[in-house]
C-alpha cells in the first residue's frame, strides 16, 4: 500500500485515526481507501476517527465519512467519530447533514467505552 494519508494507531482491536491535516477532496478519498485496507490487514473491529483538529466539515467530507463507515460496516466494523468541534456541529446541523452509519462520541475515552460495550 502507498504511503498513509493519516498516521494511524492500533489500540486493542481498534484503529485510531486522528485527522490533523486539511481535508481536501482527494485526501478524504485516499483516507477512505487507507482505512479499508487497514481494517482488512490488521483485523480491526472498530474505527475511531478523531476530528477534534478539523475546523471545516462540509457536505462532501460528511458524505465520504458516512460512506466509509458504511463500507467498514460491511466488513464487520463499527465507526465512531469523536471530538467534533461545537461550531462544526452547529454548521452540520444547520445544513441538515446527518452522519449516516456513524456513532458519535464526546471524546476518545468515550469512543473506546462505546466500542467496548458494542462487543
Amino acid at each position, binding site marked *: 500500500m502507498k504511503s498513509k494519508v493519516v498516521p494511524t494507531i492500533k489500540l486493542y482491536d481498534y484503529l485510531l485515526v486522528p485527522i490533523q491535516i486539511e481535508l*481536501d*477532496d482527494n485526501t478524504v478519498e485516499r483516507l477512505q481507501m487507507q482505512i479499508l485496507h487497514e481494517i482488512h490487514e490488521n483485523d480491526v473491529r472498530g474505527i475511531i476517527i478523531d476530528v477534534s483538529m478539523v475546523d*471545516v466539515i*462540509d457536505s*462532501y467530507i460528511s*458524505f465520504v465519512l458516512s460512506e466509509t463507515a458504511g463500507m467498514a460496516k460491511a466488513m464487520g466494523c463499527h465507526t465512531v467519530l469523536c471530538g467534533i468541534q461545537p461550531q462544526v456541529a452547529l454548521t452540520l446541523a*444547520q445544513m441538515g447533514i446527518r452522519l449516516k452509519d456513524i456513532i458519535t462520541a464526546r471524546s476518545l475515552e468515550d469512543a473506546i467505552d462505546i466500542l467496548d460495550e458494542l462487543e
Partner: protein
Amino acid sequence: MIEVNPQDYDIVLKIKDESDIAVSRQMAKNFAQKMNFSLADVTKIATAVSELARNIYRYAKEGYIYIRKKEAGPEKATTIEILACDKGPGIENVELAVSGGYTTSERSLGLGLAGIRRLMDSFHIESEVGKGTAVIVEKRRRAF
C-alpha cells in the same frame, strides 16, 4: 448574467483544480477571521465557500469566487459578500436544486445549495442553461 468587476473585490479565487476547493475554504476562513466574525460564523462562511467551490469544480469545471467586505443596510452593518460564478452548463430546475436532497451527481448528499442558504443571511442565485450560474451570498457580522 451578472457583470463582475474583479477590482471591486478583496479576494479573487480561480477554481480549476480539486485542490482549489480547500484553498478557497482556507482563504475565506482567514478573511472572515480578519473581519472579526465569531468562530461559529467563520466556520459557516468557510463551509459555504467550500460548497460553492465544489459546485464550480464539479459541474462547471472552472469558475471564480469573489469575496469582499462591505457595509450593508441602513445600519451599515459589516458584511461579507461572496459571489461564485461560472460559465458552466447552468441549472435546469433552480428551485429543485435549492430545495435540498436533490442532486445530479452520484457521490453527493444534494445538500450543498440548500445548506449554503441556511448558513448565510442572504442567498441569491441566477442560472441559465448553457450559459452558467452565479450565486451571491452574504453574512452580516453580529455584535458579540
